[in-house]
């Protein structure tokens, strides 16, 4: 008796014993979306397998970790601006405390803020909705990946309170400093930090499999390859990139953990190990990692600017091919982080060439985004402001990468604040500006309420002015020779000048402005939950499928599964009265 599957309406009535989904639970005869068991607070919000709830869990955890990471930035920026004076709300920042603040600021912002918000938060919430299905393919695997992620956050926070304090060997944790307590003086902090990162990797491997398989297989009927919205493409390619690049570092993390805990000598040169091996394994992961967080941000910006400019995305296929090109290219550029780290100078030549050439596809993607704005009818909602600010700020981030990609200039600029300013001009647009664009854009869909526009604009200008005030001066101090992770520049006579110190004070003031602006966002976020204007299903009059579901979408998303008739970006089609044409509306 073959399986009768009628994708249109309800889930087929299942016969006992028919092969059900992957997760090993019995083929429950309950019709989908119908009667559930008793739903308590715990099963609805904490142990839920609904992709939307899990997406929001990732987002809230990411926001909390962003506050912690931001507080660390506040502490060490105050120490840099007013050296050796107790920081209000934190206390005295001694050298080892400074090192662990800097290390964990980097690790938290990349692993526990950027990746969860961009890949897991938006990925979980948007992918099933945007490809028109009811949930992720493996709901319980999805829940397990969040739980592992939550455990990794707890383990990381635990690493701050163990004897010796948090690990202070930079987020790259280069051995031999990271591989033995005698060198890093955090015998408990270092293994715990590494264990937290390893658990977080496992969580994102599991989550990644869910995203890739759902996007590949569970597309709505009628949705061809070119009808998939760009943000879904980007999150899937990012998950593949993460999975392919994290492998060697997981092997490396096992070796480093054994070095730290068991006392083996994988990376101890005295006994045959090699410290450069870890650097290579780390950066083989490290560089694809920055594209893992860049691509979802580009996808979010693509959705936001097409909706609010009412314009079709310029050259959808070109963007897709250049994304695939960038993803493939990102595997052969990693040693530009190690030009002066002792690798063979001949290899540096190869990596200089590949690094400069990877700026071509990224440049083309940005040009296509800017070309999308041509001939548009742009309405500056807060999400559009953030979307456009991403393009403007990321241009400077990408452009300053050329200085560091050129090996000879990197001899001078390596590990200076020029590098710090460069990667903040790429990471902040990715992990903060694009995420705010996504939150302001999809908040109505997530919570069924509209966010306040004036508070949003205050938050926008505060964030942008603050951000630029921090990192433009740091380009200059970096070019002057300020090196990274140095807790006080008073000991270096060439750097202890008043001019450079005033630039550091300006940067700290910029950071304070940026932190204050976030209060506008928190107030706006919380207040709109209850007092925001109720949002219709499609407040921005957009085309993609998630706007066909009610706001907030119930469990099971769509009353009836949508069928796709056209691409996601058919805006302002000549000859139509309305300037948008949702994917699921028959011709």
């Amino acid at each position, binding site marked *: 008796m073959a399986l009768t599957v009628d994708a249109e309406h309800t889930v087929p009535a299942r016969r006992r014993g028919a092969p059900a989904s992957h997760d090993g639970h019995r083929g429950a005869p309950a019709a989908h979306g119908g009667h559930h068991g008793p739903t308590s607070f715990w099963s609805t919000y904490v142990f839920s397998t609904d992709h939307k709830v899990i997406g929001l869990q990732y987002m809230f955890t990411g926001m909390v970790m962003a506050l912690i990471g931001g507080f660390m930035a506040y502490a060490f920026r105050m120490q840099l601006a007013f050296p050796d004076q107790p920081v209000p709300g934190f206390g005295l920042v001694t050298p080892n405390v*400074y090192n662990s603040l800097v290390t964990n600021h980097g690790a938290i912002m990349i692993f526990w803020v950027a990746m969860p918000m961009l890949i897991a938060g938006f990925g979980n919430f948007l992918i099933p909705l945007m490809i028109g299905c009811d949930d992720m393919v493996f709901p319980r695997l999805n829940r397990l990946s969040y739980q592992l992620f939550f455990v990794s956050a707890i383990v990381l926070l635990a690493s701050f309170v163990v004897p010796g304090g948090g690990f*202070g060997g*930079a987020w790259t944790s*280069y051995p*031999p*400093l990271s591989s033995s307590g005698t*060198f890093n*003086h955090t015998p408990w902090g270092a293994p715990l930090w590494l264990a937290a990162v390893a658990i977080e990797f496992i969580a994102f491997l599991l989550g990644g499999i869910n995203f890739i398989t759902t996007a590949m297989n569970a597309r709505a009927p009628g949705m061809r390859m070119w009808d998939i919205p760009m943000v879904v493409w980007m999150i899937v390619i990012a998950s593949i990139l993460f999975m392919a690049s994290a492998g060697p570092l997981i092997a490396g993390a096992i070796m480093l953990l054994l070095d730290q805990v068991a006392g083996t000598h994988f990376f101890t040169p*005295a006994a045959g190990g090699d*410290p450069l091996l870890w650097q290579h394994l780390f950066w083989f992961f490290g560089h694809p990692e920055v594209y893992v967080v860049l691509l979802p941000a580009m996808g979010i910006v693509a959705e936001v600017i097409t909706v609010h*400019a*009412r*314009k*079709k*995305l*310029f*050259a959808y296929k*070109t963007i897709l091919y250049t994304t695939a090109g960038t993803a493939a290219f990102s595997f052969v550029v990693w040693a530009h982080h190690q030009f*002066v780290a*002792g690798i063979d*100078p*001949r290899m540096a*030549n190869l990596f*200089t*060439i590949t690094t*400069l*050439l990877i700026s*071509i596809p990224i*440049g*083309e993607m*940005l*040009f296509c985004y*800017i*070309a*999308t*704005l*041509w001939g*548009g*009818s*742009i309405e500056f909602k807060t999400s559009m402001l953030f979307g*456009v600010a991403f393009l*403007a700020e990321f*241009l400077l981030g990408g452009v300053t990468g*050329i*200085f560091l990609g*050129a*090996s*000879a*200039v990197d*001899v*001078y600029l*390596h*590990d200076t604040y020029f590098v710090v300013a460069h990667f903040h001009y790429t990471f902040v647009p990715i992990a903060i500006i694009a995420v705010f664009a996504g939150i302001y854009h999809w908040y109505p869909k997530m919570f069924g309420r509209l966010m306040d526009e004036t508070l949003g604009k205050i938050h926008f200008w505060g964030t942008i002015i603050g951000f630029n005030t921090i990192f433009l001066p740091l380009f200059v101090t970096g070019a002057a*020779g300020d*090196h990274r*992770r140095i807790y006080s520049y008073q000991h270096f*006579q*060439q750097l202890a000048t008043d001019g450079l110190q005033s630039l550091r004070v300006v940067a700290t003031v910029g950071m304070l402005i940026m932190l204050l602006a976030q209060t506008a966002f928190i107030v706006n976020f919380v207040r709109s939950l209850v007092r925001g204007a109720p949002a219709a299903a499609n407040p921005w009059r957009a085309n993609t499928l998630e706007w066909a579901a009610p706001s907030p979408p119930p469990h099971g998303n769509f009353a009836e599964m949508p069928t796709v008739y056209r691409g996601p970006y058919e*805006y*302002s089609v000549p000859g139509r009265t309305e300037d948008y044409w949702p994917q699921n509306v028959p011709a």
Partner: protein
Amino acid sequence: MIDWLTPRASSFAGDIDWLFALILGFVGFWFVVAEVVLFSFLFKFRRRRNARARYVTGTLKTEKRWISVPHVLIILCDVVIIAATLSVWAAVKQSFPPAQEKVRIVAQQWAWTFVHPGPDGALDTADDVTTIDELHVKTDTTYHFELTAKDVLHSFSVPAFRLKQDAVPGRVITGWFKPTTPGQYDVQCAEICGIGHGLMPARITVETKEQHDQWLRRAAAPAGGLVATGPGGTPWR
């Protein structure tokens, strides 16, 4: 450009500053062009009285040319930058001019040990002068240095010389520099090496030949000279 911020005190500092300026030129131009185009689109196509947007697929030849022409120009700029970079990199890190003097630099957790060749001009001889956090060099002399580390990664960075090379324990990495202008310059550790990473500054004193010989005699004299092998000797050679 960089010499506005840090003095230029070695022979290849000029090349690196020139390359920085070259890249700044190319990159600055494209950055300004892109930002101007972006902001002009934002201003020109802001929503006015609900005007309809245009329908542009970006797949037509004429439309794609707006992307592929700048695309090709950027490739040309990149090729020029790559060529310039490879030539400067070869001069700085690959082919060295013949050494007139050799020094040994050993980095350890939180101090620099410099081994000068001493009056006889040869390393590993009895009259070597070992100093801590204090390197004395003669102007207009090509120095080759052997850099290693005792415990963790460090990085020998002299901003005034535009010189940086990581010290990897278990490896001996050779590099070169040729001081040009006398003076005292900072040495910083550019690779995180634990608690004292920010507390291990050293000074390089670039002096004329006479001042250097005078210092050598004073330093090499048995009363004033430091122990030749330095603290605890080095497990690497």
